């Protein structure tokens, strides 16, 4: 007999469930509609942005609002190189360029702490957006660019692979000495420094690693939009959403970040299609409610739900 408890909360379910989900996702193009695939790619995009943002900002508590900058860099790499180089190479370059820019940003900004760092990253993102806009208007002569379209199934699989890589790297870092050191930096940077952690080097390298995935995601997603301009590519929402999604789901665990990104993307989809006039209003109300009443995010519901399950089904 399999009890309800062993079905949902046992150790075997914890290893089995992700594999099941992965198999379902990997075979989705066979049975799912094109609309579903496009929605899922969208979910994947936000998972990548959220999880990679949280790799650095979660444990270190340096709240970055520059995700849009690195995502946008990937988008522009795709727009410029998309018809010159093969798709996987373009995606890799998108990530690499984000990584390199993040190294530079890190060197110049990580001495800033707390709110100053946050404001700096937001300003940086806007600076890049306006600089690209200026360049396009004055040098290229057009604001927007066309991006070579790629088959939706390929986009879907590319995003799925990037999601898996991001989660794998995030998990590895969180379990490693690096992750431990980042937590120490988040708790007390001074103390971590005095315990032998070279805080600046660690912050910069982790920040750069986390942006690699944002860049690759941008390079892939650009092919789906076919037309981009600076306000699409560097939309500040790509900076704010990952923060909200991570907090919404539960910033402390990768599962929470994934759930937050998925829930909010699906919620936005539903609200946008069913209640277009009240979309932003209801979205905002739900966000505020969760943050007010569940400071630990949706993951904080885990323990009470487990209790309820055990009381109701396990005799």
């Amino acid at each position, binding site marked *: 007999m399999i009890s309800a408890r062993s079905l949902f909360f046992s150790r075997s379910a914890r290893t089995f469930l992700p594999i099941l989900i992965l198999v379902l996702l990997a075979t989705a193009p066979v049975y799912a509609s094109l609309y579903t695939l496009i929605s899922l790619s969208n979910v994947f995009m936000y998972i990548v942005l959220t999880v990679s943002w949280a790799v650095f900002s979660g444990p270190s508590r340096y709240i970055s609002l520059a995700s849009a900058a690195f995502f946008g860099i990937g988008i522009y790499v795709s727009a410029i190189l998309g018809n010159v180089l093969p798709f996987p190479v373009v995606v890799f370059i998108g990530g690499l360029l984000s990584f390199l820019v993040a190294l530079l940003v890190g060197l110049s900004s990580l001495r800033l702490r707390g709110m100053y760092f946050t404001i700096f990253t937001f300003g940086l993102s806007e600076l890049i957006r306006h600089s690209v806009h200026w360049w396009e208007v004055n040098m290229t002569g057009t604001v927007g660019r066309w991006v070579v379209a790629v088959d939706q199934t390929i986009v879907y699989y590319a995003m799925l692979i990037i999601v898996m890589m991001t989660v794998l790297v995030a998990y590895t870092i969180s379990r490693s*000495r690096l992750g*431990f050191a980042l937590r*120490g930096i988040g*708790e*007390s940077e001074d103390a971590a420094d*005095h315990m*032998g952690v070279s805080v600046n080097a660690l912050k910069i390298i982790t920040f750069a690693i986390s942006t690699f995935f944002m860049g690759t995601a941008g390079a892939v997603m650009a092919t789906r939009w076919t037309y981009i301009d600076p306000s699409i590519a560097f939309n500040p929402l790509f900076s704010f959403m990952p923060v909200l999604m991570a907090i919404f789901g539960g910033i402390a665990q990768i599962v929470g970040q994934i759930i937050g990104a998925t829930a909010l993307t699906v919620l936005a989809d539903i609200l946008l299609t069913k209640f277009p006039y009240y979309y932003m209003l209801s979205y905002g109300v739900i966000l505020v409610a969760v943050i007010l009443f569940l400071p630990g995010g949706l993951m904080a519901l885990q323990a009470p739900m487990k209790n309820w399950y055990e009381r109701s089904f396990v005799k």
Partner: protein
Amino acid sequence: MPILEGKSVVKYFGGLVAAAYVDFHVDKGEIVGLIGPNGAGKTTLFNLISGSLAPTSGSIGFKGEDITGLKPHQICRRGIARTFQLVKLFGNMTVLENVLFGSLFGKSMTSARSTAETESSELLEFVGLSGMGHILAKELSLANQKRLEIARAMATKAELLLLDEVMAGLNPAEVDKAVDLVKDIRNKGTTVFMIEHVMKAIMGISDRIIVLHFGTKIAEGTPDEIAKDKKVIEVYLGLEAHAES
């Protein structure tokens, strides 16, 4: 043979001099006390040694090597660890994790987690926190937080510990225990350089005491010599009090 040696160390904060040509040394195996009225520059001197601040001029040497201007993590890896006047623990980590942190990243750089965990548990027992490893650091009492900070500093395998007011805010019974702990640390072979305001304690355990006043070293010697020193009495009790006595 001094393990730590400072030569004419100067530190200016704008126009304010926090350390004025201070010469000091700590010999291996000693317990040296650093005292002085509020604002004398004691913590500044510790910050200069541990690398939180870089001196304006002068030099600081550790085990014969110049460490002036190195970063805190570099100094920690050479074998100097410290505690903070206002406790700086990793509040949302467990007590054990705090000590593990020192063990994994300090001079010891213990690579195997199991070794680090064994050592950390031993250190927790040594400072009197055994059985509390699973508690979050922020939930400990102040006295225990100070003990934890000492354990974390020791976990780096430091040869020199800088203890910044580990007895401040403790009740008399806790102070006695802290005094015993500092003696135990020295008996383990670790050199101790400590700032303290609790006179009874510092006079009781120090081999030597250095007195700072407005950034200048005004006296140095054994506790007995310091207790009789005219300048020190003036600084602490005021000129008139001294004249009346």
